[in-house]
Each structure stands twice: as C-alpha cells, then as structure tokens.
C-alpha cells in the first residue's frame, strides 16, 4: 500500500483512496498520478483559500497551480517521515507567495481599507472580536504588511492555515524553536497595533438554554 500514507484520507473520508497503480512506486505516493490527483482533490480547497487570503482571489489560481506543479516536480524531495503532504504543500505555497511581496502588501492595504468581501457568519461571542477587527483594520493590516517576511510566514501559517509549530518548522525548513520566537515577535507587533482595545472572548451565554 503506497498511496498517501501520511495524508489523512481514510475510509471516513467521502472519497475512497484509489488503489495504488504501481506497487513498486516507493515511499513517495505523490509519484502515482492517481494518488497525486487525490492529493490535489484533498488539499486544493485549503491551499487555495490560504493563497487567496494572502494574495487575493485574482492571482490565487496561478500560484496554487504552481504550488501543485512544484510539488509534483519536487516529489522526490518530499519526506513523509518529516511532514504531512498538507504541511509540505503549505510550505511550497508560502515560498511562492513570498515572490509576490508587492501584491501581498497591496492585498493587505485593500483588506485594511475595505475588509474582506464576505461577512462571515459568526456567533454572538465573535462579535466583540469582529467589531475590534473592523475598527482597527487599517492598523492591523499595516502591522502585518510591516512584518519581516519570515515572521509573517510563520504567523499566517499558524493563524490562517492552522499548522502546529512542528508543521510550520517542517514546512519552512526551520528549527522548531525558531517557530516560537518568530511567532512571538510577530504577535507582539500585532498586539501593539491592536493597542489596548482588547477584543475579549465572551464564552458566556453561548447557546446556553
């Protein structure tokens, strides 16, 4: 069984794992085009979401296509013992996003000015955070744009992609301890931009009887 040992597709998923075509394909399941297709289907949405958040929807498709092509071309360098396919793809996407610094800054400026288009549905307890994000949007966007790229990458892999310290470390090829120090540096600047207006969690009354 060579197909996708690390990716979390399983019988619980809606799509059965396609049978491996080539039993001798080696440890790298990405070699198998069908398996690679399954990786694409499983990961496209979240990689696209991440890239569209950072660079805007207009340019996301180019970068996402390049991400998957790069993954296929470099499939021999993928080490399943070190990273999930997902974290590896996030790493590639992050490197490609980094080539579009001006576009990312422009995207952030637009987010700061107008916010994201879609008003995400939220529960009551999110309102406080959302209100604060709206009033401080320009400051927050400027703070993110002003971060050093390596700090911003770590911050956004944690905040937008939801990766763990360990996954960020393997995705970016940096030591585990470095993830923590870059993350705290970035968060310190975010907090400074958010000032004293602490958006506070209000866990009370969340759907309580």
């Amino acid at each position, binding site marked *: 069984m060579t197909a996708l040992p690390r990716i979390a597709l399983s019988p619980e998923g809606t799509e059965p794992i396609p049978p491996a075509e080539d039993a001798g394909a080696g440890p790298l399941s990405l070699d198998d085009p069908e398996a690679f297709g399954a990786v694409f289907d499983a990961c496209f949405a979240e990689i696209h979401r991440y890239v569209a958040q950072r660079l805007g929807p207009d340019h996301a*498709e180019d970068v996402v*296509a390049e991400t998957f092509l790069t993954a296929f071309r470099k499939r021999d360098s993928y080490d399943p013992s070190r990273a999930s396919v997902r974290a590896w793809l996030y790493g590639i996407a992050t490197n490609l996003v980094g080539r579009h610094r001006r576009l990312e800054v422009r995207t952030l400026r637009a987010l700061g000015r107008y916010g994201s288009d879609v008003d995400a549905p939220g529960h009551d307890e*999110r309102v406080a955070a959302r209100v604060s994000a709206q009033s401080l949007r320009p400051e927050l966007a400027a703070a993110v744009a002003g971060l050093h790229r390596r700090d911003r990458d770590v911050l956004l892999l944690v905040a937008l992609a939801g990766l763990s310290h360990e996954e960020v470390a393997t995705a970016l090829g940096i030591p585990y301890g470095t993830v923590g120090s870059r993350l705290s540096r970035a968060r310190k600047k975010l907090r400074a931009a958010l000032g004293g207006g602490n958006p506070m969690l209000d866990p009370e009354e969340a759907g309580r009887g």
Partner: protein
Amino acid sequence: MDDLRTLRELYGEPQADPFAAARVRVRVEDGVRDHLAAGAGRRPGAGFWTRLGAGPGRWRPRPSGAVAAAALTAVAMAAAVAVVGTTAGEPGAPGRVSAVSGRSILLAAASTAASEPEETGAYWRVRKLHRQVHPEPLGRGENRYRLVESRITEQWVARDGRVWSGSRALGARPASKADEDAWRRDGSPAEWSSRGRVLSTSPEEGRLTAATGKVPFSMAGRAMTFEQIQGLPTEAAALKDRVSRVVREQEAGGASAGGSPDGVVADALSGLLWSKPSPPAVRAAAYRALAELPNVRYLGEAADELGRTGAAFSFTLRTTPSVRRTLIIDPGDSQVLSSTATGLSEAGGDQVELVLEAGWTDDEPAAPGLP
C-alpha cells in the same frame, strides 16, 4: 486578547469559486504531462497520468474541494470523537427504578429551591471554571499528549440591567499523568500552535469588560432581559409551555437548526437553574418541569471534576451527531454544580463547566482572580 482570531477576521473567508478547482486541476494535469513528456519521468509507471487522457472528465468522480477538505476535517474529528468516547463514557441506561428516583430528586430540589428566600445584593454573579481538552494531540515525534485548557469566567448583572463579563485563562496543562510524562519527554514546551490558536501554559491577566448594549441572557437562543426572567411563570406546566413556545418560534426562525426540540426545552429549563438570576419560584418551577420531561435521564450519583458529589441528569441536545449535556446538581441546596457537554466534535473534548459561585452579592464587579 485573541490576536490570531482578530487577524482571521481581517482576512475573512475568500469567495469560493466552484469552478476554480476544476480550472486549476486542468492546468496542473497539463503541467504534469508536459513535465513527464520532457523526459523527466523516471519510472514507467509515471506515464499513467498521460494515458488517462487530457480531460478531467476521464478521471474518476471526485469530491469538490469543499467536500475533500471536509473529508480531511472529518478524519481529524473522528480522532477527537474517539477520545470523547473514551473519556465521556456512556451515560447509564435509565432503568425504571432510577427514573422514579430521579424524578423524586428533582422534585425535592424544587421544594428546596422554593423555600429559599428572595436573595438580596446589588449584583447577581456567576463564577465558573471551564475545562476542555484541546481537540488535537500536541507535541513532537513519539511524544504526543493532550492538553486541557481552563478558564475562569464571571458574569455580573446589576438590578438595573447593566452587565459585566470577566474572563481569565488559566493556561493549558497536560490532561493526564501519561500526557504529562509525554510532555516532559517533549522538553516541557510552554507554547503550542494548533488549529489557528496558540496555547500557552501561562495564565492570562484577569479582565473585566462592561457589555454595553448587549442583552445579557438568552433562552433557546432568544435574548432575554433581567426583567423578563423575573416575570417567567412560576407554575411548572405554564413555564414549560412558555419555554416550548420560545423553542418552536426559534426553530421556525431557523435559530436552532439541528437541535432536538425536547432536548432544547430541557436545556432552556435547566439554564434557568444555573445560568440566570431566576427567582426561587421560577427555579422551583423549572425543577418540577424537568421532573416531568421523559428525555431527562437520571444517571445516579456522580462527582464533578472538583470532587463534589451530587445527582447526575442528562439529556440529548442534538441527535446527529449526538450531543448530550449532563448536569450534576446538589439536591441539598438545589444548586447546579457542573455541566458537561459531550460529543461536540467541532470543539474537541467534553466541555466542562463547574459552577464555583452563583448568587447575589454586594461585591463590586472586578476582574476574576485565580481560583
């Protein structure tokens, strides 16, 4: 302060173009074919992609991106649910005898509640300890462990309707002895990131926020003022009718989709016992109404996470997937000691709320102290 959540609010959710996945897939297929045709394919098997033909139509039916992402999430959730299953345990089967004694316990609590004097004090305050196991195991390599996060929350309500919320995260800790051992082997880290959040072992500073313009309470998802709670029926059948009507209206409005109506009624009634400044007569009526609900099961005597013993009752809040709430009440003084919500797959482990204090006080609102 949750800076990462605020950051996500800034970025928002990009518009999902349903055709983007198909467009990009074709481009990737073409790129892969070109790459392989250029002689970079090193194994005979690698040509398979080419043999599949050009169009995505030749591929097996595939899930949409959203479904595929859901499949990944579903696996993560399945892992979380498995843990919930092992920690929660199956609520005991309701035998006839225990059902009868459960009813008598609730009726006894109703009598106790009814005989309580109207309390005095400037503020109604409830202070709770929330505990929840983080849904994902953390750590590196072989050293994986679960963390439990704790938070103190307080709600203060003045008689004129002003409201304050207090909150203080107490920091994350390994959930069990085995988890603690694994955490030590992992080098005893003090910070983790997971699911877009950063968990830390350090407690936060306590915070107190005045909630301006916010209706402080809700019943079955409907906002309720302090005055409205004081005016609730004090007769069990009338109270149940009132609550059921609110539940029906909220459902018609789509507010509690997916809920089990009987469970929502039980939850709304029990909420009057421990999450709201209900007058003694309303609390007594709520206990009597709960005693008559067939879906409220008595589980026997149980201890909460602080070791306080009482009578445990549970009911289903949602049927698919099943979410249950278990309340432990102290029949001696009719106070609710704890609530455990089980089966919240999206949230991870059981959501435990322990009531530390509930009632009227002349203390002034202040940021929560450490327990």
